[in-house]
């Protein structure tokens, strides 16, 4: 997967989730912030009122004189706070300082509400309280550093953000695993396709597949159907080609043999003999080319259970007669060898091995066909006591049309290439070795474990 659907989905989801998180934080923060700070403000106002009660008015010389009498114990109680430092400033109705910090900034033109200011290099929050002193009104400013408020702000921020962050993380995790789970059917589908034999062109069952994958499946099944149709056409063509080629060859062979049975001059007999040999070679070549074409992936039949032993037993009669015609002793050592494959092609592969062994054996030679299983692997092998294949030639003899230098037989050089092709089509390996006593040739086809 070059572009992960999951990563793509997460990329799409992340920005909106982050934005929602931010908006959610703001929306949750302000409404909860206000009542909390109001309580702190009220506490400051209470302090202001309590302080205002300690302003004393003395009526002397027509003008009012103001005094502030605050016992130290009371001041301590009032100014005590666990986190913040509290400052105050008491102003007379005329705006003169009566007590407290005279450089505490007065309210600006912002109105009667609490305000923020800087005092002694610290951020402070200030409330202004009007307190009756005599007939007039004094002003008490109470300021407080913002440790508590900042703490509260942080706490509110955290308590509102945390659940939202958890929600966001949960969403991402759910998407991550949800996509994996959601794509599960797709994964099992791809497992099914992966596990298929290349020859299995049946349509994929759409029954269990999710709705969204139906178009993909339909397209895939369409393609499979086309390939299957092409394969059927090829098989039909091969069957027809086989018929069209073999029937005239059979006629040619029949008439050549008839002619040879008549009294003929030496020269004509020699020529007819060549025609006869050429006919037989052509027939064999036609068979081999057809077999090679049949071994192509598209032309193979459906794989079935095939026992190599039964394949050999069914052909034994024909092979024995071939061997007898060349005075070769063809023997068998057959044990059960079950494989999955195309019975026709397997028979063709074995027939080519047997034909080669008989062809390259000398008169009185010994050829043995063996089937069975070794370490759980079914195998078939043919062994002869002929001239054998030198080590240096062993790779080349498997190539199409390659014939070993000095070969005398009438072969086309296709036999082993066909065997190799058919073996490869069945996932089987070919091993070329020597016969018993390091003499002759042994070709083994070993199949994958069933």
């Amino acid at each position, binding site marked *: 997967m070059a572009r992960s659907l999951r990563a793509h989905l997460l990329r799409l989801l992340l920005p909106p989730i982050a934005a929602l998180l931010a908006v959610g934080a703001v929306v949750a923060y302000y409404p909860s912030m206000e009542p909390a700070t109001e309580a702190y403000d009220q506490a400051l106002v209470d302090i202001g009122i309590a302080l205002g009660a300690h302003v004393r008015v003395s009526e002397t010389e027509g003008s009012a004189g103001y005094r502030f009498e605050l016992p130290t114990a009371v001041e301590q109680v009032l100014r005590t706070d666990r986190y913040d430092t509290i400052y105050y400033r008491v102003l007379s109705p005329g705006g003169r300082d009566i007590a407290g910090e005279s450089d505490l900034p007065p309210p600006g033109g912002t109105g009667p509400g609490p305000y923020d200011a800087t005092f002694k290099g610290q951020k402070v929050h200030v409330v202004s309280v009007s307190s009756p002193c005599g007939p007039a009104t004094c002003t008490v400013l109470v300021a407080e550093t913002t440790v508590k408020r900042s703490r509260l702000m942080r706490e509110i921020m955290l308590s509102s953000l945390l659940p939202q962050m958890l929600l966001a993380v949960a969403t991402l995790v759910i998407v991550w695993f949800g996509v994996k789970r959601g794509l599960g059917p797709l994964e099992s589908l791809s497992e099914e396709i992966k596990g298929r034999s290349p020859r299995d062109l049946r349509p994929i069952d759409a029954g269990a597949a999710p709705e969204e994958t139906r178009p993909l499946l339909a397209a895939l099944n369409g393609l499979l159907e086309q390939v299957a149709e092409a394969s059927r056409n090829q098989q039909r063509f091969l069957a027809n080609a086989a018929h*069209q080629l073999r029937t005239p060859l059979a*006629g040619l*062979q029949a*008439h050549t*043999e*008839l002619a040879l049975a008549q009294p003929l001059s030496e020269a004509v007999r020699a020529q007819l003999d060549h025609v006869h040999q050429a006919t037989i070679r052509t027939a064999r070549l036609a068979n081999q080319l057809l077999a090679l074409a049949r071994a192509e992936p598209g032309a193979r039949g459906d794989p079935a259970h095939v026992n190599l032993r039964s394949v050999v037993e069914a052909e034994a009669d024909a092979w*024995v007669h071939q061997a007898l015609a060349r005075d070769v002793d063809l023997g068998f*050592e057959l044990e059960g060898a079950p494989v999955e494959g195309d019975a*026709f092609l397997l028979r063709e592969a074995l027939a080519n091995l047997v034909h080669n062994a008989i062809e390259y054996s000398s008169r009185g030679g010994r050829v043995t066909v063996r089937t069975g299983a070794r370490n759980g692997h079914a195998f078939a092998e043919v062994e002869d006591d002929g001239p054998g294949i030198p080590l240096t030639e062993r790779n080349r003899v498997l190539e199409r049309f390659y014939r070993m230098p000095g070969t005398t037989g009438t072969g086309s050089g296709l036999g082993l290439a066909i065997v190799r092709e058919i073996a490869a089509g069945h996932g089987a390996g070919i091993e070329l070795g020597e016969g018993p006593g390091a003499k002759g040739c042994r070709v083994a086809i070993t199949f994958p474990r069933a």
Partner: protein
Amino acid sequence: MRLLIVEDDAPLASGLRRILEAEGHAVDVTGRGEDAVSAAASERFDLVILDIGLPQMDGFEVLRRFRAAASSRSAPMQVLVLTARDAVEDRVHGLDLGADDYMVKPFAMPELTARVRALLRRSQAHGGPRIVHGPLALDTVARRAFLRNEPLELAAREWAVLEVLLAKVEKIVSKEAIIQAVAGWGDDLSPNAIEVYVSRLRSKLEPAGIRIRTVRGFGYMLEEFKE
């Protein structure tokens, strides 16, 4: 013997006809399945050589009709199927439908004539109580054997093994097939026992030129008798 060749390829049909006539048979030829069916219905043939790839009615259908009509016939008509197709199913299909033998084109004429001889011999063996193989004659009713017209002593199991081999002259017969055919008396027979019977048969028959060939690791084959 009366033979019918059903083959639409004229050169091949005429070649087959001449070869089989040279063997001393009376041979008719047709290229159409329909004609073959009607010919077999009105006349008696000992053997039909039938091509599967016929135009219109194919060889399988001809074979099916032969066999459908065969139940009323007294002596079985042997059918040798020819095919140019190489599908294994064709062969199984043909044998299922009752073909007696099967050859893939192209084929060597000696092989064809050998198979024709074997089939005709089999049909005679089916037909009568007497099986003849060169100088050997078996009277299956009296269960007496003669070699060069002299009575030949055969133990019951030797007789049974010989019968199996005689039914398939020039065909290899596996030891298992012989055991199955012979062990009808409810006792176990080992492959070794079969070897013993064959060896006894050999010592009795070989002096008269009748040869039983051993196919190593497989079984035996009674060779065609040659003068």
